[in-house]
């Protein structure tokens, strides 16, 4: 009975969710404060921006590609939004920016302090994210270049551009209307939840209920078959990267608002978390496989793991070791699960 239960759990699509629940339950025995209201609010606040990134990455992974430039899109869009919205810039820090005297002044940008600053700033961030995604998509689809190389190069280029535009300075004094996106709540529910909920709903509808969604999976499984079947593969690939850029910009909005500043180095250590969460959630690196729920499970597991490690009184050097070991264990369980599934299908 017990063995069958474990086997069913292992073979279930929801394996990572069960793993997260078991992990949380075990942690609760040793650290009951992990279930405190404050910590659940922390988990929530950490989860939604990461999920936005994983959702974007998922679309590209389904296509059989990868988007390494998501973190540089975050940095670039954070800087773009920060420059447009800030109400104060220190000339000592910013006078060497190439935009000083053109777009930037000690009072910020020409729209700083107006009612348009926040909406235009956010729109500019989203547009910048989609633009970088478009460039990536065009290079992959039209230029037939490997996604890994294209997005690696754009990661380097746009990270550098973000640093160049600000001369590596952080942009403070963002308006309250923007920063509340990262810190504001409706009752106990953070704004970021609603933002990412909309994003997840769009992703779910597109993947599950539209022809476009079926094209994504078809291209990821076999691009040649898709071409023969009349799927507009180039447009699908471009759309995938544009959506990834859009999601990275959404995550950038949430992280920048939370930190209350535009940062040219925003997210530079996040890439492994994003790809790790996607893969642990069950989204295949080889394309053709992915679900919004799996993205959620993967992000949830990652956030829970990081949170737990932050709470344990481990020596600081042990934290990455434990994190790596737990991820390895999760990956091993996933491999075991895949083997069992394969055997079951054969049987």
């Amino acid at each position, binding site marked *: 009975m017990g063995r069958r239960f474990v086997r069913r759990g292992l073979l*279930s*699509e*929801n394996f990572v*969710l*069960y793993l*997260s*629940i078991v992990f949380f339950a075990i942690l609760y025995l040793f*650290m*009951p*404060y*992990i*279930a*405190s*209201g*404050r*910590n*659940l*609010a*922390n*988990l*929530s*606040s*950490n*989860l939604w921006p990461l999920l936005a990134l994983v959702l974007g990455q998922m679309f590209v992974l389904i296509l059989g590609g990868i988007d390494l430039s998501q973190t540089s899109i975050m940095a670039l869009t954070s800087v773009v939004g920060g420059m447009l919205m800030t109400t104060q810039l220190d000339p*000592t*820090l910013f006078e060497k920016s190439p935009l000083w005297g053109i777009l930037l002044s000690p009072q910020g940008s020409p729209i700083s302090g107006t009612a348009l600053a926040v909406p235009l700033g956010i729109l500019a961030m989203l547009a910048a994210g989609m633009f970088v995604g478009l460039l990536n998509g065009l290079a992959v689809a039209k230029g037939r270049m490997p996604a890994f190389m294209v997005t690696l190069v754009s990661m380097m280029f746009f990270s550098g551009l973000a640093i160049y535009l600000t*001369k*590596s*300075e*952080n942009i*403070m004094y963002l308006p309250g209307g923007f920063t509340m996106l990262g810190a504001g*709540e409706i*009752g*106990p*529910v*953070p704004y970021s*939840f609603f933002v990412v909920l909309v994003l997840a709903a769009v992703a779910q509808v597109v993947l599950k209920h539209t022809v476009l969604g079926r094209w994504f999976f078809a291209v990821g499984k076999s691009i040649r078959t898709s071409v023969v079947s009349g799927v507009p593969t180039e447009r699908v690939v471009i759309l995938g990267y544009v959506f990834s850029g859009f999601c990275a910009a959404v995550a950038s909005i949430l*992280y920048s608002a*939370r*930190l*209350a*500043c535009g*940062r040219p180095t*925003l*997210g*530079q*250590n*996040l890439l492994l978390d994003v790809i790790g969460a996607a893969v642990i959630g069950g989204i295949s690196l080889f394309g053709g496989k992915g679900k919004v*729920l799996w993205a*959620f499970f993967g992000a*949830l597991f990652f956030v829970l793991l*990081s*949170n737990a490690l*932050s*709470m344990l*009184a481990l*020596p*600081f*050097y042990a*934290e990455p070791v434990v994190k790596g070991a737990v991820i390895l264990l999760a990956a091993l369980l996933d491999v075991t699960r895949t083997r069992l599934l394969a055997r079951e299908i054969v049987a």
Partner: protein
Amino acid sequence: MRAWRWICVSVAVAALVAGGISCSRRGDAPARTSVCFAFQDLETEFWVAGHKAITETLKSKGIEVLERNANQDANRQLEQVRAAIARGVNGIIIIPQDGESAVTIVGEANKAGVPIGVFNRPPANKSNAAIVVVADNERISELAVSYMAEQARRLGRKATPLILVGDLGDNNAVARRKGFMNVIEKNPDLFNAVIEVPTKWDAVTAQANLEAAMQSNPGVDFIFTSSDQMYPQIRAVLEPLGKWKKIGDPGHVILGGVDGDARAARWMKEGYVDATGVQDLFYEADALLTELLRAIEAGEKTPNKWIEDPGFALTQANMAERAMDMWGYKLFAEQGPAAAR
């Protein structure tokens, strides 16, 4: 099966988003006094020594220390501090990535009513309350550069000054640059135009940029580093150019820096470095801990105090009297060259 899945997902989401409704704002506080010490990579000797002084003092007082390394990621540090608050720590000490993120993190601690101390890298503004211990970097740099300027006067010609600038998002770097510039501007008869080399506090960046600057300005004969950690990079660039010379040798580049670490101690003793601005690390660590522990004891939730370390400059002229006041010199004296690699 589908129903079961949706129940699990709904429970997980509901627990996360509605966590704040039913539970208290503070986690269950551990019985023992605990302090979260959140820092960025301990990339320089100054931070390593500061980390050691703080953790050892706390542990010796029977305080549980929750050490967190954010690996130069301000967002991660914010998450770590939030987790520590949820765990119910009694106090927080941070070495922030930069002054801007310090403002946000201090604000989080203020909101939660947990006293917070900021070690040596001050918040970009004073909008939130914290115990901040910071060296008077402008004055310390000015003292060191003034001595270097005296040496430049003896050259009998204008010197070409170069400064290795730290991360200007960090107030320490801004103040050190300002101290340097104050002296240069006061002595227009002594100096040609200043060459500024950005380092971002990163050794690799520093070496690459310094190499490029020395190629295009071979006449540089006056170098000030905003952190003593850059001396190995300065040596690596100057040595092949035949410019790593002792004081008094023809072609000696007038050298100085700030921090007062063991490398500076070694090269001052060996006669390569003219002066170094010294932060009193042990005083800073002690002052921060004393004030934070006092606030915890008194139940103060948002103590607000800026403590300044006046520092001093160790020069070739006052080395005999003041060398042992420099923390790096003590390390060098205790551990020998191993402390000054």
